[in-house]
């Protein structure tokens, strides 16, 4: 410390230089202090979960073994709160549930994701549709993979829906109080099949064209509403005003049919299906969660029917 006055004397600094040197000193001091503070603060950031950003997003910590936190992890999360905080210990057994309902929902998400990406490359017009598929298959990076995934996920979803229903029947899970939810599930089955079917026409190739031709020809035979169905002619149905005309937007499978099936496929049915799914999941919770594995009941314990 006693060297500083010597320096001042020997160099005979001007006023400006004096002030400058003071500033450098101050900055140096300030810098070290700032550095110290930054290090101190950074130590506090070491645990990401202690940061304000993390806490604002997740509200509760997830990795603690505290039972309360484990419950809150589920309850305070918009996606996870589909679930209760706790479930029966046997309900997680894959052998019982087969996991088919959950997988079906996951496939719906996969299909939405790949579907949205496919929409970027597709025009639902007679001129473009088929070319867009060729473009997708040969030029778009990973386009072929994208289309394949959308197709196979759709097929898989039909399979998992059927197997889910099969399991629900085998375990008698449609019984009271879940009768209504089974009905909602049947509607979802129909919507799944319709989603798959409306997508079939979109590549505008021979396969889709003839499948949809065969499919909608059946609509022509609808009783009372189809031009070739029972009592159709008597009620004034012609190929130009019957239910098939309404489905196709014309009397043949053409550009209007392509547009209609595109809109049903991408907007109409997914919207309706989402609403039914919301009800389906909500009712699972409200009807007491997953049905089992429940303790077996005995014949001797059957209650007599309540007489009103």
């Amino acid at each position: 410390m006693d060297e500083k006055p010597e320096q001042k004397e020997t160099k005979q600094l001007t006023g400006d230089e004096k002030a400058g040197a003071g500033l450098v000193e101050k900055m140096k001091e300030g810098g070290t202090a700032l550095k110290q503070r930054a290090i101190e603060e950074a130590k506090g950031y070491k645990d990401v979960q202690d940061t304000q950003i993390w806490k604002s997003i997740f509200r509760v910590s997830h990795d603690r073994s505290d039972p309360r936190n484990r419950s809150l992890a589920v309850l305070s999360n918009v996606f996870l709160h589909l679930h209760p905080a706790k479930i029966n210990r046997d309900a997680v057994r894959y052998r019982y549930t087969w996991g088919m309902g959950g997988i079906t929902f996951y496939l719906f998400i996969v299909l939405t994701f790949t579907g949205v990406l496919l929409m970027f490359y597709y025009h639902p017009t007679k001129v473009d549709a088929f070319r867009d598929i060729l473009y997708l298959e040969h030029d778009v990076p990973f386009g072929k993979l994208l289309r394949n995934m959308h197709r196979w996920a759709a097929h898989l979803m039909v399979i998992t829906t059927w197997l889910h229903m099969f399991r629900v029947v085998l375990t008698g899970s449609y019984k009271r109080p879940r009768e209504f939810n089974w009905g909602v599930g049947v509607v979802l089955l129909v919507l799944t099949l319709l989603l798959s079917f409306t997508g079939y026409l979109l590549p505008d190739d021979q396969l889709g064209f003839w499948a949809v031709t065969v499919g909608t020809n059946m609509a022509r035979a609808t009783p009372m509403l189809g031009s070739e169905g029972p009592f159709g002619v008597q009620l004034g149905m012609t190929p130009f005003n019957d239910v098939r005309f309404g489905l196709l937007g014309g009397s043949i499978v053409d550009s209007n049919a392509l547009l209609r099936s595109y809109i049903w496929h991408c907007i109409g049915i997914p919207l309706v299906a989402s609403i039914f799914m919301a009800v389906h999941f909500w009712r699972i919770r409200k009807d007491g969660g997953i049905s089992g594995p429940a303790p077996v009941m005995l014949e001797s314990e059957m209650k007599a029917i309540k007489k009103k």
Partner: protein
Amino acid sequence: MAGRFNLSKGKLIGLGVVVVLVLLAVFFVEDWQQLWTISSAPDNIPIVAMLFLVPFFTWLGIKQSRANDRLIVALEQDPKLAKTSHRKAEPWRPGWAKEIHVWPYLVRIEFLAAVIVTVVLFVWSIVLNAPLEEPANPNLTMNPSKAPWYFLGLQEMLVYFDPWIAGVVMPSIIMIGLMVFPYVDSNPLGNGYYTLKQRRFAVGMFCWGFLMWILLIVIGTFIRGPGWIWFWPGQTWDHNAVVFDKNVDLHDWIATSRIGKALHLGFLSANPFKFIFGLLVVGGFYILGALFFHWLMTVDFKKLSLRPLRLFPQDAFEKKLLARTSLLQYLTFQFFAVSVLLAMPVKLILRLALTIKYVWVTPWFNI
């Protein structure tokens, strides 16, 4: 002989079936290339997968049902045990918590399932390409022109019924019938666990419908070739094959048969007799069908000397269930059961084995 080759009876039967199938395939498949072309078509892969998935999950369900059924028998014989038992086939020890946290025990399973499904999808999508045919051409009819595999059951039904039934009425009845199912099943037992003993009829009916549906799809996928003609698996699809349509209506079939001629039933081919005849046939079918299902509901399989059916010997219990069923529930069930579960196979046999086209011909519709 508790040696290494100790096969149970069931496994032995299974093995026998496989051997017979292999032998049949070796002797009767003329055209392996054709069989391979059909079953390796990317769009048919799902139904090939179903051929394995459905038996596997049926087995898985039956396995757990039998475990529960054994438990039910044990508990019914020992009321003391029934009071203390935790009543599940799943293992349990005193002190184990009844409930577990969803985070992480369920969420991790879901995550794992999502990862596995994603991997499966990626592999499937890399290995197999989604089909793309030539651009749509209304002037060039595809032959055979098939619906996607999950609708082939409906398309196959077109062989047996007019389009308004196969394409509109049947699907509607099937869907409504499925929705009605919980409301006509008056059995309070078997809610939330696998069992066959307590629900033999309900499970049996559903399996009947489900397996029939899969069977129709399999016929539509593997057997129907060009012109929707029946080709056995392994037969070459002949695009020039012609089948002369020799199907006749039931009233003509009877009127022109030897017995019909002897009894002077020729008038059945003319209106209004053919209308009345068809009405009576359909009405009679509903009555006989209902009697059949009623018999199936209450029959004591023990008394029948059919060994495999002795697994479900509860006629007294079934009668108790029937007493709980309201008339509305009973009639609703009978309507759907006869209209779908019975009408479908009966018409299939009439059409394929007896070449009968319609059973009821009217000026407005034919059944």
